[in-house]
Each structure stands twice: as C-alpha cells, then as structure tokens.
C-alpha cells in the first residue's frame, strides 16, 4: 500500500460523506443552471435591445460581473449583505442569511454574465435570410424569435454552453469559502481530520471527474437529438424508392408541431468540446448557404 499515496480504506469509508458533498455541489449546479438560462436570455435581449434604457444596464451588468472575481463576489454577497441592518431584519434575510442561497446568487450572477456573450453570439449566428423568410410569412418578431431564432441559436451555442457548464461546475468549489459544505469542503474536512493530503482530495477529484463526464454525455445526447436534421442527411441521402418509403413510414403523421415545442423547451448541450466546433461550422453553411 505504501507505494501508492492513496489509502483505499479511508477512501471507501469517506464515500457517504463525499456523496453528501456531491449532492450539495449538484444542487448548486442545477439551481444555477436552471436560474441562469432564462436570465441569460432575458439579459441578452436587453443587451441587444435598441432601447438604451434596457441595453445600458445590461451591458453594465455584464462588464461588472464578468470582471468581478468570483471569490470576492461570494464574500460580498454573504458577509457584505449581512452588514446591512435593514436587510438583516427584513423578510429577505431568509435568503441572504443562508450561505447556500448566497452561493447560488453569487454563482448565478457570474454565470449569467458569461452566458450573455454566448447567447448573443448564437443569436447573431442565425442567418438573416431565415429571419426574413419568417417575417415574410407574416410571423411577428416575437414568433420569429420563439420558433426560428431561439431554436437555431440553441444549436449554434451548444458547444460554448457546454464549455461554460463544465468550467462553472468545477468552479462551484469556491462556495466552501462561505461555509457551504460541498464536495471540496468535505475533502478538506477529511484532510484536516486525517492529515492524509492525497486520499480525500483524489477521491473528490474522481467524483468531479465523473460529474463532468456525465455532463459531457448528457450534452452529447442532446446535441444528437437537436441535430437530427443533419444526422439523418447521410442516412437518407441516397433516395432510393425503398429508402424514401421506409423513411416516410417512420414518423407518425401528427409529428410536425410537437417536436417544435420540445426544441423550444430544452436547453442543455451535448458533445465534447472538440467535436462541437466542427458541428457548428459544417451545420451553418451546409444548410443555409446553398
């Protein structure tokens, strides 16, 4: 055993505690993602708005929270707001008094600030011709946004979004500085109890590794689903009568509108970072440029 720096017995015994920490990490991650996505879209729309009353505060928000170091941001939210007496006595103290809630708030602000650029780039990547075609069909700008721009932007932005989610998930480790017991905090506690510098940290690392790869697989599945219109291209292209007939039989007659809904509802993102970039660049010209 001594050749390896890892004490397997300790690792095994620490699993229940680690799992608790992982649950906290997961909870924070999921909450921030769920809050962050709609907020990102809203702030992006404000940012892209022609009205300065909307675009300037949004731009200021992005500049401030992208620049603000996350660690200091968390300190400020958790310890800083505690100094404000009115807040301490008010009903909002339920939120600002809780380290967990403060962690979610701080991380969300940071995440949204990064996501605004991702969402903006993706929306801008939607070919103008498609937006025009939609307008020419009599769709209102809002309908065009909901049914054309957003679903397409989601596909273009998936690779960048996956990157941000992975970085951010690993980054949740900072919440331990404001007393939230996440995966990293558990590892740290164990280290202080056992003075084993390797085992708890490596065990926690293994958990993070699994989490990140689960995210990767999830994004892979989602990307496959969203890009089915491209994937089937190769499968169906040789339009033999038999192939066409088989394909024709495949979706139920009523399918058309339901998938639309699904697309608009979903959001996460697939595929490893490396594979995603080509998917983006081949998709766009191939479909729109002809």
């Amino acid at each position, binding site marked *: 055993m001594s050749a390896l720096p890892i004490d397997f017995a300790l690792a095994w015994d620490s699993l229940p505690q680690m799992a608790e920490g992982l649950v906290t990490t997961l909870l924070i991650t999921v909450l921030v993602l769920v809050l962050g996505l709609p907020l990102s879209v809203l702030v992006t729309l404000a940012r892209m708005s022609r009205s300065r009353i909307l675009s300037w505060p949004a731009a200021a928000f992005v500049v401030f929270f992208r620049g603000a170091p996350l660690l200091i941001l968390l300190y400020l939210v958790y310890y800083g707001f505690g100094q404000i007496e009115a807040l301490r006595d008010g009903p909002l103290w339920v939120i600002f008094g809780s380290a967990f809630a403060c962690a979610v708030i701080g991380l969300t602000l940071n995440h949204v600030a990064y996501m605004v650029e991702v969402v903006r780039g993706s929306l801008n990547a939607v*070919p103008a*011709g*498609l937006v*025009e*075609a*939609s*307008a*020419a*069909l*009599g*769709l*209102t700008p809002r*309908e065009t946004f909901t*049914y*054309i721009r957003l*679903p*397409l932007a989601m*596909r273009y932005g998936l690779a960048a979004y996956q990157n941000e989610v992975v970085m951010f998930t690993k980054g949740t480790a900072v919440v331990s500085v404001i007393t939230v017991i996440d995966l990293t905090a558990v590892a740290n506690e164990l280290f202080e109890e056992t003075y084993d510098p390797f085992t708890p940290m490596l065990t926690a690392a293994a958990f993070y590794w699994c989490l990140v790869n689960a995210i990767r697989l999830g994004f892979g599945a989602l990307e496959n689903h*969203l890009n*089915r*219109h*491209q994937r*089937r*291209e190769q499968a*169906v*292209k040789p339009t033999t009568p038999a192939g*066409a007939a088989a*394909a*024709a039989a*495949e*979706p139920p*007659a*009523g*399918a*058309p*509108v339901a*998938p*639309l809904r699904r*697309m608009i509802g979903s959001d996460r993102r697939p595929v490893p970072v490396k594979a995603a970039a080509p998917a983006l660049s081949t*998709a766009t010209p*191939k*479909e*729109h*440029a*002809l």
Partner: protein
Amino acid sequence: MSALQTETGPQPVAAPRPIAVEMTGVEKYYGKFKALSGIDLTVRKGEKIVICGPSGSGKSTLIRTINRLEPHDGGTIVVNGITLDGSPTSVQDVRLECGMVFQQFNLFPHLTILENCMLAPRLTRKLSKTQAEALALKYLERVHIGAQTHKYPSQLSGGQQQRVAIARALCMEPPIMLFDEPTSALDPEMIKEVLQVMEDLAEDGMTMICVTHEMGFARRVANRCVFMDQGEIVEEARAEEFFEAPKSDRLKAFLAQILH
C-alpha cells in the same frame, strides 16, 4: 383575396382589373446610396411581371419594398388597398397579401418540410394542426414534393428545396407572389422543375412579380417585362416588344449580354 381568376397566358389584360400593387415615385436609400429612385409601377390582379437588369440595379430592393422587408424612404406603395406607412398593422397585413420566394430558399433547417409549411398557417392563420397539415400537404403535392414531407431541408436537392419554399409561401394563400431570382442558385437541371411550378402557378391566375433572368420563362409567362438599371425603371414593355424591339440602349446592351 381569392386567386381563382381563370384568365391565362401572357396576353395583355383587356379590361382594366383591380390594382394589386401600385408604386408611385418610390425612393430608397442605403445610407447615402440611392438604391431606388422615382419608381412608378402598377401591377393589376392576375398580371405576371418580370423584372430584370444588371447586378446591383435594385431589383431585389424593389421587390423587397413591396412586402416591406425594406422600408422605402419616399413615394407611396399600396398593396391590395393597404398603404405601406410603416405602422405595425400595415406591415403585418401586407405580408399576408404577399408570398415571397428567395434566391437562397431560406427554409428553416431545424423543421421538416411539413413543419416548414405548417408553421405560418398555424401561427398566423390560427389553423388547427389537422387543418394546417391538410393545407401543407395540398400545396406540397402541387409542387410535387408530397412524398418527402417528413424530411429535413438539407436532405433535399436545391430544386426540391425551392419548390418547398414555394409551397410554404402558398400555404398562406396569398393573392400576390414575389419571386427574387428563384432559380439563380440552382444547377441547370433543377431550374426547369422550379420554372414549371411557377408556370403552373401563373396559369392559375396568380398575380406574380418575378425578378429573374430566365428569358424563356419571361417570354412564355410575363405580361410585362421591366428593365431596371441604377435604381431606375429604364424600360417597361410587353414581353414581345421587350425582347424583339427594345428601345433604350441600356436594355439593348443588357439583352445582348444575356442572350450572348
């Protein structure tokens, strides 16, 4: 609203019919660049107009002002009684009057052929799913795509995609159809199938304004041809005169180039 006139063929219309599109003194600027100057054009119901001219002469700009994809800066445009004054209702109304087909097809890549055709009728005409689907299938049959409705646009050839784009516009049952170089992005063997669909449409009495350099199509279908250069309408004539006896030197030069 009905496109059921039975008049066919390229003969000039005898009794004046109601006016579909009337442009008077239309001007359009891109910044300081004047893209359209003093455009006067009247199109009556059931007429087929072909617009041609050199690249950059303002053909696309003209046709796009009719459904207000480009707002115009001077003059007036009236489409089926709707004055294009930029109010949101007039914009929405005029887009229901005009179907548009683009050079680049512009099909929605994430939707199947059927979904492409059903989207606008469902949202804008508030049709039920069943109604919209029946409508979409009807027009897809008409452009001979009935068997491929579940496919995505990228799985079709260019000619097929353009025919779907025509069907998608027809699903809104507009009284006027605008075509902006619908065959320019197509390989030669696919041009014919798209032109055939357009000719069928013309025979059904649709009011059509086509920007195209397909001179055969213009001769067979157009009531009138319009030649544009540098943002102006230089010459406007019945198809035969237009090709056989062009008056202006600019049109002569252009035709010489086109017909090699």
